[in-house]
């Protein structure tokens, strides 16, 4: 599987796990560059964010054969023959809410390009709790909201999807079953990177420090190029060739330490700065980063430069996981719409604000009630709020952006018809209404909860079959 093998144990001396996608919609060429740019052992592809599951759920409700990242199937059609030939294994959560359908589509794609020859695909299921919510509730699992403490029962009739976050164990089982491709639903992003390490190095499930080190490796890998020069705020202008940015590669050793690097000759940069920024991304309390397999203490991480575009990570300490698994529930939470218009010099910001006032007065007169109305001036205060200060009278242009949110779809719908009239009935020098009426969007909100492992883990299943 890997180079520098240690023949006595049959275990590799080093394993390279390459990151190929950081979210659903990421650079489609990145995984291809990871395959072609140099030697790797594993390709991990993270497609899921908190909101992604509910989008996939919506797609599945329209088409029972949908509900996964179709991009992944197209990608496998391109790279599967090369992966099989070179012994590169692929681990992904592209399965979304339909891992079985995803695996089927990958197998079909594999046949189309003549891949096969005994290659196997592993499918992890059992994270989907949608059909078991009422059973779980009556068995005394309230799935209370992690922040508000409210029981799920209060939004039960509006639940659109409910998925467990699974850890690395089912992926490791699939790898033990010789799967070249492992497709999961809602696995933790980090598990996609450290499951291969557990499998290759034979780490024990009680080796908290090594598992924690793997979790840190996974956190660094899971957002793709954000660890290798993308979105880096430290002297961004000095980071070379982002158009062919090399996604990160974790080069791990049996003791858990690893080097973050990228293929030589690729764009971007791997430095203390890029790695630190990614370590802190979406961080809560850094001393307790909880996963289903272990808890990692990010305040124990040691970083060192290890040559050009190489950062060594070691010293990570871990602790046991909790008795709970996280559940991600998506539920319908009303409607929203956002409308925009562009106002030009002179006094662009004052005109935009006057336009917003006219709009609000009309909505009040129509008796439209919303939970929230938000007015932003894009080009002035939409990202830094009051910190932007007062706009100068000579500002060349601003975009007025008005959003409304509420439970009454008809009110939100009526709002969308009140934007265009402002062009002829409001303050002057206004344009930019070319996209038609704003779209009413149903809000599918995120409800994080915890559940005892014992209630759900037995239903997790792993199947490995020939492609």
């Amino acid at each position: 599987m890997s180079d520098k093998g240690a023949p006595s144990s049959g275990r590799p001396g080093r394993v390279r796990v390459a990151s190929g996608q950081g979210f659903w919609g990421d650079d489609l060429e990145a995984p291809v560059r990871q395959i072609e740019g140099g030697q790797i052992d594993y390709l991990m592809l993270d497609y899921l964010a908190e909101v992604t599951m509910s989008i996939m759920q919506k797609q599945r409700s329209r088409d029972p054969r949908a509900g996964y990242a179709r991009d992944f199937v197209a990608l496998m059609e391109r790279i599967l023959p090369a992966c099989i030939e070179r012994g590169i294994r692929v681990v992904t959560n592209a399965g979304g809410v339909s891992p079985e359908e995803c695996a089927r589509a990958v197998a079909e794609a594999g046949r189309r390009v003549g891949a096969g020859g005994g290659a196997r695909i592993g499918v992890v299921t059992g994270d989907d709790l949608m059909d078991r919510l009422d059973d779980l509730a009556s068995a005394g699992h309230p799935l209370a909201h992690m922040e508000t403490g409210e029981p799920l029962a209060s939004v039960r009739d509006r639940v659109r999807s409910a998925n467990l976050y699974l850890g690395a164990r089912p992926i490791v089982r699939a790898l033990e079953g010789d799967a070249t491709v492992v497709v999961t639903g809602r696995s933790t992003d980090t598990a996609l990177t450290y499951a291969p390490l557990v499998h290759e190095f034979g780490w024990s499930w009680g080796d908290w420090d090594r598992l924690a080190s793997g979790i840190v490796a996974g956190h660094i890998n899971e957002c793709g190029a954000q660890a290798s020069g993308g979105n880096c705020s430290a002297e961004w202008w000095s980071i070379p060739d982002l158009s062919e940015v090399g996604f990160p590669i974790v080069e791990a050793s049996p003791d858990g330490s690893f080097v973050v690097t990228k293929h030589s000759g690729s764009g971007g940069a791997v430095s203390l700065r890029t790695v630190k920024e990614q370590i802190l991304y979406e961080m809560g309390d850094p001393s307790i980063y909880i996963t289903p397999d272990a808890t990692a203490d990010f305040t124990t991480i040691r970083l060192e430069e290890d040559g050009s575009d190489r950062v060594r990570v070691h010293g990570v300490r871990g602790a046991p996981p909790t008795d709970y698994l996280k559940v991600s529930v998506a539920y319908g939470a009303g409607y929203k719409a956002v409308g925009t218009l562009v106002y030009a010099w002179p006094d662009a910001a004052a005109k935009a604000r006057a336009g917003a006032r006219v709009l609000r007065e009309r909505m009040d007169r129509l008796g439209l009630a919303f939970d929230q109305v938000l007015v932003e001036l894009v080009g002035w205060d939409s990202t830094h709020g009051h910190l932007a200060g007062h706009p100068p009278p000579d500002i060349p242009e601003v975009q007025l952006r008005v959003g409304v949110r509420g439970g009454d779809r008809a009110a939100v719908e009526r709002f969308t018809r009140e934007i265009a009239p402002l062009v002829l009935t409001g303050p002057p020098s206004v344009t930019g209404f070319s996209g038609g009426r704003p779209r009413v969007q149903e809000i599918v909100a995120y409800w994080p909860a915890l559940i005892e492992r014992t209630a759900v883990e037995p239903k997790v299943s792993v199947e490995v079959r020939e492609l």
Partner: protein
Amino acid sequence: MSGRGEMVEVSLLELAHARSGDKGDTANVGLIVYDEEDYDIIVKQVTPEQVKHHFKDMIRGEVERFRLDNLCAVNFLLHGALDGGGTVSLKTDAQGKVLSTALLRMKVEVPREVAGRVRGRGRLPTGTAGEGG
């Protein structure tokens, strides 16, 4: 050592770089000093209270701070910063992606020699290629 040298104001942008992201309605901002010797300035002056004061009505909830002395970095949690967050939020920056730079606007006081060392950092140097198209 200059002893009780004169203190001058610099912006956090000159001392640190930052990345922000979201978890529900909470935004996090990770703040990382460029030079380890400046870490103490951040620890002493960029407190949760000061950060809350900096953002004012942009944050409805509390501000928490966690130190990562190992990385010379601090992590802030800004609760109630995202108008409900994720798919609920009406904000342009619903996921708090650029709250990092909003924090970097904050001013801190440093000895004059530190200001001399860091002045202008974080901004595109004039005449660099990055200014072109």
